[in-house]
């Protein structure tokens, strides 16, 4: 298996590198100019030119590419154009913890509620409860997140002012002390995490229900019931463990989400996470930051898939790597 992992990692290097090269050319060939902000009446025409020279954008494209390549091979992804020329990984390092907290909490909630609802639906198949849960899950699953977020804000911030609408902390939260500060932070996270996890959990519930229904019909479940095991043991010990295997794939593919962030939620709740960094970089034509983000998300997608494949092999001995 170790050889398999090493092989996959080695293949990943040219793959990610190819993605970066493509991104490099696509963003430069797309319309838009990183110095466009400086082209306006009252600003000397020289400024945009000077800014482009600073960013090295006046060189021919192949020269820019080889210069970029030389830097990247030394681990230098450059400085952001739009964020006060901070090194791009500093920008990402600031945004990442916020995204990881939100996404981490969301994933935990997603899988917890998703699996619970999935099991109930499967065990009580075709009852009123199953139909109710299925319809509700579909309802939330089909709802656009940004709209749902706004509805939650109207409900819980305007009609019943229970939760704060935006930001990570209250004004003056520093004076609450470390515990108070943390609690204040969590209080601010309730709405966004709820929005994200209701939508995600509904999706996972559908997977678990399907997989659970398949497992429940297997011979060994009938055997377990036949030997007189209590129903909860049959469900949780025998059926659930096997039904959860496909969920592992979902977990692997969720890895990039943890780091790439949820754009709408970050914009609506004003969290400076990775989703906002990426999209603002695209709008500002901040080339180095776009490439660094692509690098991070590209690597994570590759690693996530590898992780899922490995977990699969670990969980199911029929799969040989």
């Amino acid at each position, binding site marked *: 298996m170790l050889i398999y992992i090493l092989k996959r990692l080695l293949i990943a290097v040219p793959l990610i590198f190819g993605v970066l090269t493509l991104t490099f050319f696509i963003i430069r060939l797309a319309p838009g100019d990183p110095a466009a902000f400086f082209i306006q009446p009252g600003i000397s025409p020289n400024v945009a030119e000077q800014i482009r020279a600073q960013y090295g954008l006046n060189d021919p494209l192949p020269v820019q590419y080889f210069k970029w390549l030389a830097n990247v091979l030394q681990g230098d992804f450059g400085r952001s154009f739009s964020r006060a020329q901070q090194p791009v990984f500093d920008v990402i390092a600031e945004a990442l913890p916020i995204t990881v907290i939100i996404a981490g909490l969301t994933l935990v909630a997603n899988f917890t509620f998703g699996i619970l609802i999935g099991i109930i639906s499967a065990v009580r198949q075709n009852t009123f409860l199953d139909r109710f849960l299925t319809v509700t899950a579909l309802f939330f699953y089909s709802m656009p997140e940004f709209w749902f977020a706004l509805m939650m804000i109207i409900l819980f911030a305007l009609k019943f002012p229970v939760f704060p609408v935006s*930001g990570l902390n209250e004004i003056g939260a520093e004076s609450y002390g470390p515990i108070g500060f943390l609690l204040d932070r969590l209080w601010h996270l309730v709405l966004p995490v709820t929005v994200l996890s209701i939508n995600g959990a509904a999706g996972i519930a559908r997977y678990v229900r399907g997989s659970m229904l398949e497992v429940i019909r297997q011979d060994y479940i009938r055997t377990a019931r036949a030997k007189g095991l209590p129903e909860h043991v049959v469900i949780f010990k025998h059926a659930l463990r096997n039904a959860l295997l496909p969920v592992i794939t979902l977990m692997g593919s969720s890895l990039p989400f943890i780091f790439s962030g949820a754009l709408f939620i970050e914009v*609506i709740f004003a969290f400076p996470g990775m989703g906002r960094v990426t999209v603002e970089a695209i709008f500002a034509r901040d080339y180095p930051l776009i490439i660094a983000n692509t690098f991070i998300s590209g690597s994570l997608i590759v690693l996530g898939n590898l992780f899922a494949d490995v977990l699969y092999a670990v969980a199911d001995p029929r799969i040989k790597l």
Partner: protein
Amino acid sequence: MIETCADRVSVAFRLAAALFIVLNMLAFSACSRNNGGNGKGAKSSAAMDSTLVIAMLGDADYLNPVIGATVTSSNIFGLIYPSLLQSEFDTTTGLMNYMALEKKLREVTPGQGKKAPKGALAKSWHMSDDHKSLTYILRNDAHWDDGKPVVSADFKFSYQLYGNPVIASARQQYLAELVGADKGRIDFDKAIETPNDTTLVFRFYKPVPEHLALFHTSLTPLPRHRWKDVKADEFRHSPLNLEPLGAGPYKLKNWQQQQEIVLVSNRKSNLPKPGTIPAISFKVVPDYTVRLTQLQTGAVDVVENIKPEDFTALLKANHQLEIKTVGLRVYDYVGWSNIDQDEYRKSGTCKPHPLFGSARVRLALTTAIDRQAIIDGYLKQYGVVCNNDISPSLKWAYNNRITPHAFDAEHASALLKVEGWLPGPDGILQKNGRRFSFVLYTNAGNARRNYASVIIQQNLRAIGIDCKLDVQESNVFFENLQARKLDAWMAGWSIGLEIDPLDVWGSDLKKSRFNFAGYRNPRIDELCELAKQKMDPVGAKPYWLEYQEILHRDQPITFLYWIKETQGFSKRIEGEDLNISGTFYNVDDWRLRPSANIAQ
């Protein structure tokens, strides 16, 4: 094997579920701790009573006056750094006034002049008779926050930074009249002299009107002793940018990038005094709906650019809010390409555009568009029909004898008929086999322009013109506009307070980068030049009156409406004086009423 792995998975899920439940409980306990989780309860805390919260759409780029280029940045660094002069827009005359401690450019109109000149670093100034040098006498009691005096060398040093091409300051245009600028390289030794710590002399290569000289020489200084060792190529990413050393009424307490900038009153400041409100928080809230919600719940005190359609609901929901407006500085227009852009791009020659090349056709288009209907339907009392690009707020120059071209579809049709545009078999006007059909482009994400473009489309259809609508991403739209790839578009300008329209209307299309329409009228060039030569702006009034008449006649574009920008304010703010020069122009004098005194 399956068993063990499934065991692990199951244990992990159990742990995760437990963790989530604990976190949620913590969250809810935090919520109940805050007065039942009521946002207003949290707001009644002492921190909120002493903090003014202003919502911003995005973060400041730099809190450094040399390189900070966004409006947000200049709002904030304007409070941190001192300024050489105090400037004020006189709403009675529409002229800018500049004030030193002991001198004013103009006498202040009664009822105006709320800004005390105490914050100015200059005691006085003297403009030479030939208008080629300007000497400032600085006060000697001004100090940076670290105790070092503010001296003339700080200004010279700062101007060298503003003029350094490696630093690429967006304000280098202000140095365009200094000695050497005409030859492409400013000679700082001659252009700025500092004979002693309190004397500062600027020299120009040509005579410069006094108001313009004052405007261009009063760029915000940086402390030389703090910045002198920073190399030009490291200037933009120097860590000093995060710790601004100023002398103004506020100082930076905390800057959490992309989240919040907190300023606190600078107790040491005598320029003019420590800010009245103890702390100001500039909070980044990117989503418009959320900014509105925050204003409604009282989590923020000021939200700029509220859409007129939201006023009623907002004011009904919270009686402690009010909408305030500033002067007319922003207008929207429909641009018509006066020249054949394809031909110009290919050969550089200017031929009339097949559709919009004639002034009569453009006049017909303006007459066919019901501008008042757009205002009534969207902007309501916050819009005014626009005739040209000199704002009615610039009262000294505004030509109020011009009557707007009234909406008159029949007149428009008659004008087009004279030009040979006659209805074709499909009802669309035709001339020499060409249908009057075009695409009107605009940038994405502007509700006002979307609204206007639909009305324009209907209006034009009514007289037999086929106008298709297309929305482009802002960057792409702007690039296409610059590359002269669009025949018709809708956009807007925010005007400067000093009139200088050559960039937008100059006949030399290579120089006039923003003359997207390709309008060329030598008389406009002449008038702009004549106006520039006047040493007193009011002396140029006849030129500007004629300028407006020409634009009104030629209709290079269809000017739609002036927009009164509308800002949402909490009534707990007192002493605010909104002005065309900015919403936050006297924010250091604002006061906050304690929440206990606000009627519920």
